[in-house]
């Protein structure tokens, strides 16, 4: 599985996700600087990592979405190359228009850094096929702007097309407002593109993919990708 991690100025989870990819796949991903417009043509996976690209100035992900590499990312998206945007990477995917909707300031206005529970809503994707939709999984979140919003037609489209990948839930797996850390509409924690090949999510699977870090619930996302793309 040939993967590239796009590195923006201010990315800070690029190495975390690279470590996880190397651990799961045995291969080093290509660390690709945002200013380089030429992406290799034989990639299986492009990762937009977490962090605070360009200092989160203007809007989170807005300036990264204008980076020289983004035109190549969009071309590869059209070809069906798998893409994973985590946290700031999700914000960048929304700002580029590769995913619908937007991520606004958290409902409680504070930056939140803690473990949350979520559940896979659909397992019919290359990302979530190793998750049990009946079980709550645990992953960290670390964001100030993770409050997913979209207009009603977009939300209906996401539901109708089975494009909600993850929802926040409580430890028992109940999708309730008390388990919604940031005010996201319909407890949405991650969404998919129309072809289900692009996933954007606010929680960090790469940060809980090694028992030495306190849990492995994130690892199944990467083992599923390896199985689908290797």
């Amino acid at each position: 599985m040939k993967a590239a991690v796009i590195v923006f100025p201010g990315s800070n989870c690029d190495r975390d996700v690279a470590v996880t990819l190397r651990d799961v796949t045995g291969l080093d991903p290509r660390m690709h600087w945002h200013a380089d417009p030429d992406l290799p043509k034989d990639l299986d996976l492009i990762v937009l990592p977490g962090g605070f690209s360009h200092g989160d100035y203007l809007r989170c992900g807005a300036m990264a979405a204008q980076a020289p590499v983004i035109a190549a990312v969009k071309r590869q998206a059209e070809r069906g190359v798998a893409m994973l945007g985590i946290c700031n990477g999700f914000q960048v995917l929304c700002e580029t228009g590769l995913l619908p909707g937007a991520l606004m300031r958290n409902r409680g206005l504070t930056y939140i850094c803690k473990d949350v529970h979520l559940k896979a809503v659909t397992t019919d994707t290359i990302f979530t096929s190793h998750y049990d939709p009946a079980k709550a999984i645990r992953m960290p979140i670390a964001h100030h702007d993770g409050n997913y919003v979209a207009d009603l037609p977009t939300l209906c489209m996401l539901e109708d097309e089975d494009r909600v990948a993850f929802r926040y839930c409580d430890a028992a797996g109940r999708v309730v407002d008390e388990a919604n850390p940031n005010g996201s509409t319909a407890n949405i924690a991650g969404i998919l593109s129309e072809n289900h090949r692009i996933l954007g999510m606010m929680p960090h699977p790469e940060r809980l993919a090694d028992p030495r870090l306190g849990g492995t619930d994130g690892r199944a996302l990467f083992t599923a990708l390896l199985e689908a793309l290797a």
Partner: protein
Amino acid sequence: MKARIHVSLKPGVLDPQGKAILGALESMGVDGVSDARQGKLIELDLADTDPDAARARVDDMCRRLLANTVIETYDIDLSE
């Protein structure tokens, strides 16, 4: 030529910061304020001399970068 661009959240988009401002005003004892919305103001110094061309260019900048039209609207004011 100068452009002042006022970016604001679309009506209907919940504005948590505006709500916090409204709550702060209420807790200060200010009454008669029924809503508060927070936006941003961006000021540009432009080389343009033709207002129509300047407006078209700034509009393009807004759509491409300065505003996220999924959740925001913008107004452009031009001055000498």
